[in-house]
């Protein structure tokens, strides 16, 4: 049972991830979905970094006098993933703004009747 305590961080992160996923699927507001997505992704980053930790190690900056360093690779991967998260968020928000302007709402329940597949195509009322 003792070593199960060592896994506790992973389970906490798993809980965070699943809350984020819940928000993405359950909530109807498009912006809320994006925020939920943000939370889901940030918690995945925490999972990566938690895996790279070496107890008793220092940040991977080479200094005389230090021997054990924590794993640099997860940090590199997460640097990339953070920017991906922001990029997706930016495009998502731009889409949400356009949807608000075209359909007048960003609530999924109100959008469904407006986006019926059979409805005839009406071009987006733009300039």
């Amino acid at each position, binding site marked *: 049972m003792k070593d199960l305590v060592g896994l506790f961080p992973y389970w906490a992160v798993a809980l965070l991830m699943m809350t984020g996923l819940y928000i993405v699927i359950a*909530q109807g507001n498009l912006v*809320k979905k994006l925020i939920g997505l943000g939370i889901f992704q*940030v918690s995945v980053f925490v999972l990566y970094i938690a895996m790279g930790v070496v107890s008793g190690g220092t940040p*991977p900056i*080479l200094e005389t006098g230090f021997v054990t360093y924590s794993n640099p690779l997860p*940090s590199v991967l997460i640097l990339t993933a953070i920017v991906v998260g922001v990029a997706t968020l930016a495009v998502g928000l731009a889409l949400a703004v356009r949807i608000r302007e075209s359909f007048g709402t960003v609530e999924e329940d109100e959008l469904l009747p407006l986006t019926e597949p059979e409805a005839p195509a009406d071009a987006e009322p733009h300039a």
Partner: protein
Amino acid sequence: MIGLLAALAAIAVAVAFMRDLLVVAMLSSIFSFACCALFVLFDAPDVAFTEACIGAGVSTVLTLAALRLTGRQERRSGRPATAIAAMVATVCGLALVYGSLDLPRFGDPRAPANGHVAPHYLTRSEGEIGIPNVVTSVLGSYRGYDTLGETVVVFTAALGVLLLIGGAQARPGKRGEAPARADRDVVLRAIATLFVPMTLFLAPYVQFHGAYSPGGGFQAGAILGGALILYGLVFGVERLNRLVPEAVLRVIATLGVLTYGGTGLVTLALGKGFLDYDAFGTRPVGQQIGLTVIELGVFMTVGAVMTLLFQRFAGRGEA
């Protein structure tokens, strides 16, 4: 560490049930900052730095700008999806827990991940690249191609936002823009005048010092972006647009990507592999030259794109 994780969980649950989107945006920003604290705790300062600038800073500003256009209140009507969502979340959660049983214990030095590729970076990067910050050396050189991909992702995001709510289609919005009026927000303006130039100096420092201390292209770009956004927030978007017009920003962003990609093509021309900085000189020096140039490329792109995004979102409802 336990306390931080508990706080994070509380914030996440709160976000799920709050209705006022402004509060939700703020909560998600706090969530990111708490994660930054956790990253520092987990010996990953670089990631903490980036998460603070980009994750908490820029994305919150963008969310708020978008919320201004799409309305604050979430109109909650009967959502059948909550049952499905709960079921999917629990199933994935259990799968994660089941999978974690095999993972090496938290912080276990003998973990396979610490035994195979990582030691090479830690031991040999001193000789091969010669800069103390191993994360920057891995980011720039060992896995430099990933970072090129990364810069292009940022550029694609800018491209996308320009296409969706771009300048060519800027349309008069319904809601007026409320620039900080000179008479009332003295406090804001005072701090801003003090703060903005300081951060503008901080950005190049972080960029060029990235080889020795946590930092690098991404972080520097985010800080530059943050500074300009602060200026835009306080002094109004028109003045920001006049300071850094959109066309210039687009050119800088493109130049950033081309600098990065160009370095790779130059190494090809000099007979080495793509992005193999040994083409610029003997082992440690050539790598450092290469690293600095590509960090500059990333700095230009990320900085320009962050500002561009803010301009587009803030400018949308006005003009």
